[in-house]
């Protein structure tokens, strides 16, 4: 079992839709969770960073962590074609600075 699992997609939605991207993780010691966005032929860029359980909102993006079920989500409201990218979830190995990534979900928002 991979430590961070993510459905690779692709996920195709119309402009304006609410998008839900999800990951599960297996290591209960994980505490910090991140979502990165990666455009084609670019490096990933940090989108959201959360600690432990709860929600964090930033504009159209909401990150949610449920530690009881080891489930992390990213919601995108009013999705735009410019949101088309691969979204990677990640967490820190406990007591290290090493990140472990999911495989990424490719999202396409069509006009």
């Amino acid at each position, binding site marked *: 079992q991979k430590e961070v699992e993510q459905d690779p997609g692709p996920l195709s939605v119309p402009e304006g839709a609410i998008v839900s991207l999800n990951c599960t993780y297996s290591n209960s010691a994980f505490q910090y969770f991140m979502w990165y966005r990666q455009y084609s032929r670019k490096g*990933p860029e*940090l989108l959201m960073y959360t600690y432990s359980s709860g929600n964090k909102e930033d504009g159209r993006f909401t990150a949610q962590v449920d530690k009881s079920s080891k489930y992390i989500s990213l919601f995108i409201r009013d999705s735009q074609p410019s949101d088309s990218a691969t979204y*990677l979830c990640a967490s820190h190995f406990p007591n*290290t*600075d*090493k*990140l472990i*990534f999911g*495989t990424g979900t490719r999202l396409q928002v069509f006009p």
Partner: protein
Amino acid sequence: GAGVSQSPSNKVTEKGKDVELRCDPISGHTALYWYRQRLGQGLEFLIYFQGNSAPDKSGLPSDRFSAERTGESVSTLTIQRTQQEDSAVYLCASRLRVGQETQYFGPGTRLLVL
């Protein structure tokens, strides 16, 4: 430059040859990471440098892989006797300091081993 830069952007090599990949981190960033991203897979941690501390090499897949960093500047990832399974995008990231949450990634080097 303002961001992390990597060179070359693309590299095609023959099986068995050695390759060197270069990363220029953001000036002043003390932490530097190398990752490998195979097609359809997530990023795989390779090695981590933090200041003058000994690097964390725990992610290097074999002894054909090595990396160096000069102080808090340029880093080079070397792959000796390349194999076809080494084909991937190699990404470098830097971070201002330990505990600061954001890693800034370069655009990557696309390596193809024929």
